[in-house]
């Protein structure tokens, strides 16, 4: 702790020196920006910088000819500091050495820096945080730089727009209007681009599922139930089925329908089958809870109760079953014991047998 405190003092002193220097630079740079001067940065992810083309940092002809997309990324636009100008990563690192140390292990850092090789000054930091001159001159001024952490003076929408400046499209095609966007989540609620905390995806926690569980604790708890998908065992994550960035379904599924998602692992259920079971064909969730259940095979209710909620057909389906029909009862009944209805109607997901209309075959 003591060493850490000493380091902090050194960092603050370095900041003060840098702030004095930056104060002199800022005015001239601001004028250059107003003239349309382009502060070129290394590009990022696919499509980098393209969405920012409509910002005030239009790509220059030089940038258009750049060799890699990371060289085309623009400095982020900070609406709360329009007068600020870029100062370069080296200046940022003078104060933020520890941040830089952690950031250097991330995919972001490697990609930006590779893009900057031999092309221009490294302004990696400012491609996300916006031009840093104002912040460098007044480090504690709220909004002088785009901050992505708690109590940032920069609105969440601006934070997200900054990320989407490079990450628009692809998996983020439907971000606008998604429930996470509507609930005011920032990208950095789920991601931490500044440190390698997870094996990939620069997640805000050590894994995708831990990140999701930060808010969806109840769903995480369901995975502890008797029957569940293998998420607690690390074989899958929430993002295997859901696209948290938005989709054309309300539950953020990656396919057109619930069943489409289920078929991706259970392709045998897809059929189509000669004889279909209509609630199965319509929606697997009619009978299953994919996150976990206290019944066998993720069922939403014990059998035969589950089946008897729809099947009142004359004769055997509509009798009240009681413990008398259990294996320990006086009149054991196959409609209750073991697999219950499925002892006979085993092809309950549909049958391809010409004699399988009742899923017996």
């Amino acid at each position, binding site marked *: 702790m003591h060493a850490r405190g000493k380091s902090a003092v050194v960092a603050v002193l370095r900041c003060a020196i840098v702030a004095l220097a930056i104060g002199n630079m800022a005015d001239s740079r601001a004028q250059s920006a107003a003239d349309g001067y382009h502060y070129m940065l290394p590009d990022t*992810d696919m499509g980098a910088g*393209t969405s920012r083309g409509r910002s005030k940092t239009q790509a220059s002809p030089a940038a258009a000819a750049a060799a*890699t997309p990371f060289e085309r990324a623009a400095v982020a636009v900070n609406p709360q500091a329009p007068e600020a100008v870029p100062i370069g990563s080296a200046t940022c690192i003078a104060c*933020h050495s*520890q941040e830089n*140390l952690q950031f250097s292990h991330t995919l972001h850092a*490697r*990609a930006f820096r590779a893009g900057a090789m031999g092309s221009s000054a490294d302004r990696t930091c400012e491609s996300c945080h916006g031009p840093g001159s104002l912040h460098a001159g007044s480090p504690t001024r709220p909004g002088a730089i785009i901050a*992505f952490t*708690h*109590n940032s003076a920069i609105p969440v929408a601006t934070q997200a727009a900054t990320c989407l400046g490079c990450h628009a*499209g*692809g*998996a983020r095609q*439907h971000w606008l*209007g998604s429930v996470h966007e*509507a609930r*005011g989540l*920032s990208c950095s609620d789920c991601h931490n681009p500044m440190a390698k905390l997870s094996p990939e*995806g620069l997640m*805000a926690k050590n894994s995708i599922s831990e990140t999701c569980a930060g808010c969806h*604790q*109840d769903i995480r*708890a369901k995975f502890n*139930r*008797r029957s569940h998908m293998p998420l607690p*065992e690390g*074989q899958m994550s929430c993002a295997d089925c859901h*696209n948290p960035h938005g989709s*054309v379904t309300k539950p953020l599924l*990656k396919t057109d*329908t619930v069943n489409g*998602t289920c*078929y991706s692992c259970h392709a*045998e259920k897809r*059929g*189509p*089958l*000669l004889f279909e079971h209509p609630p199965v*064909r319509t929606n697997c969730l009619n009978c299953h809870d994919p996150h976990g259940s*206290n019944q066998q095979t993720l069922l939403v209710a014990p059998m035969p109760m589950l089946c*008897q909620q729809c099947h*009142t057909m*004359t004769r*055997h389906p*509509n*009798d*009240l079953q009681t*413990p*008398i029909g259990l*294996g320990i009862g006086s*009149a054991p009944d*196959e*409609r209750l014991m*073991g*697999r219950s209805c499925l002892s006979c109607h*085993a092809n309950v997901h549909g*049958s391809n*047998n*010409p004699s399988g209309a009742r899923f017996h075959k």
Partner: protein
Amino acid sequence: MARQIRLTPLIGLGLALSAPLIALADSSDSARLGDIQYGNALDPRGWTPVLGAPDPNGMSRLHAGSLRTPSGTLYPAPSLFGEHILGDWHYSGLLEVGYTWLSGHDDALFVHQYNDWNKGLALGLLWLDAYKPETGDYLEFRGSRAGDDDQFYRARGGRYGSYKVEAFYRDIPHLISSNAYPIWDGVGSGNLTLPAGLSAGDSEPAAVAAASDAAPRRKIKVDRSRTGVSLEGNIARQWIAYASLTNEERNGTRLWGGPMFFNYPFANNGGIMETVRPIDFTTTDVSAGARFVGALWRFNAVYTGSFFRDHQDQLDFQSPFHLTPVTGSPPVSLVSRGQFSLEPDNDAHNLRLELSRSLPWSGELSLTGAVGTMRQDDNLLAPTTCQGRVGIDLSPGPNFTVDCADWNTSAALSQKSADARIDTLLLDARLSFRPLPELGWHLEIRHYDEDNKTDYLSYNPQTGEYGYISENGSQAAVVPGEIGIFDPRNPLYASYFGQIRAVPYGYSDTSAELGADWRIGARNTLSAAYTYDRNQPDYRERSQVDENRLALAWVSRSIADGTLRVSYDFAVRSGDGYDYFPYADFYSVSVPGFVPSPAALPFTVDAMRKYDLSNRKQNKFRAIFTHPVGDNATASTVLYGRYNDYSARVGRHGDNATGLMLQWDYQPLPSFTFGAYVGGEFGETRMSNVADAEAVVSADPHYGGAKYPYGNSWNETDKERNLNAGLNFARSFGRTRVDGAYSFVYARGQLDYDYATTAALAANQLPFASELSAFPDTHYRVHTVDLGITQAVTNELAMRLFGRYEFGDFDDWHYAGFDRSLSYDHRIYTDRGPGSHYDASLIGLMLQLKI
């Protein structure tokens, strides 16, 4: 017929096709379906050893405590990473290998449900990470092996911002039962035969019970092996192309059924078997697409194809049970074999186009269209496998027998293959604007359609009869005339009521949503959305189901420095008239010549409302509050509820769930973290039904009528209580790191019932009505304790000793009595269930070597 798709040539083809794509990249993982996460029960994160020691300086020297997300959650402390340089490459890596010991109930289901850890060598992790700073070229590898059926290996490489290639192999186990005692020979194949000592169709229950007692214990499990390659990268300025190929093999067994007609109404008759079916699946998925990301336009086009092959077309099984005609007449033959068609091969194709354009006023128009098709054309099995004649000959009365030769070949089919097909269409348009920073609104219209084109007529061209041989002839062998065939030319079968045509279920769904949000100051946002949804199912009890939904939400960052997210939904579902029997066109009643029987029974009670179509009022809420406490702690609360009220007299009445979760995360130092949580969920599902008066011959479907009298009605409520609690910690002292966790899971299910009169009971249970009692509660309770210590020996070498102790108990009345016997008259079961109690310990000693 199964047509095997060979993986190797396809992957080779994929790689060959990738060669011209010199510039590919970001996989956009969050858009990919499956294979996002690689881990196992030894390390669910799939790279925990890499985290190593935390950086004592944390994330920043300029901020007290840990940094937080905008919502207020603490970011974990980052780790100390090191790397080496070799030529132009920087690299780092870690190898963790060791030995694990598993003891106690080491074969318990809940110990192994999705893992294959055991006593033996284990590869905890092999992780390699190399990159070339000057060019952005990189290579990554992660691999782990907990057991033969529980391992993953994945390699990635490429150039940042240019292209990426990925290949993986993984095995995922799924244990379904470790307590199974199938009596048959041939388990795992498509042909189950009885062991020596049992005669097909002619064994006494005592002999079957003896065979069950003598059957060896087996595991029922499915192993999933997946292999894949994918590539992605720039093909032109702002254009990205991507493709993937995945092959999956699933092998093993699953518990299955085996009906040879009821046993419950007839002592010493019928046959109910819990059999075991084979799993021998291959699924090959391909995708290829391209996307464009521009300043104004964004476009994505992707084709996905999925090809499923089942290498086992059918399950044939021998039944040991003797079937006896209820009339007392001698059987014309022994019916001793049953058969299931297993899932047919199928192909699916989907082509999706997405287009978005930025608009003035911070607006966007987003259009999505997708067309798809699911098809299968497997050869159909014959309607029966019986030999000779089957049925009951009441001579000199009616002769209710059929010649199996007329039905046991494909010549008895109206078509030789399924020719089944469903086409899908998705159209989605969303328009959103934010004309003011404080105000945004959106309009979305969505249409989805499934058009089922399958048409199958159960018609035997050899005999001119409709229908099929029910339960392979077993039903006909017990009850005269219940063969399953309809023949308008034959007075014996001209009144038979049965399904003679497949119902091509499909549906379309159209919805429109109009919503807006208002930002009130910098810290509050209110939003509201109204959604109208019209679902139009084909050939269902309703042809139209409408839902009106109002969704309200409030996001606040003004309460105690925390973030509160509250949402509330109110929805009302209704629709057109409910037809309790919409299937007439697919039943024998639709065939000219059908003769209504004076003894006809109703299909079902008219008051039944199936819950996926019935009227419903829904109230839903959720509140999530994330509260920073000081510089280094976070308290979070989730409170939620869902309440569905179905206006059904018969069927599901309602279901609800209310839950509360509390969590505390504490990170006073990068070297010390502590977390604790507790939560519970309480819910119930309520329903009612009515037993038909079996002694009454009436076609009256009315609830309260002669066939479905109120006195036969009954209610059931399933109540569930779920509790979760746990804590975890990690503490580093110099070169030593200690971590631990405890979790507790408890679930209790309580099934209650009541009834108007004992006439609601099954006739076979009525004589024992005086013994009526409550169902035993089901419960599932697990305690898990994890402890680990990691000691760095040098900067590169560390030892890790860890252990898990897990114990639990389980009870489910479905298995009541199965610990004593799996044989009950003419019923034979296979799975004894997970067992009432288990405890198991896993100890591992691992060597960690930084590379």
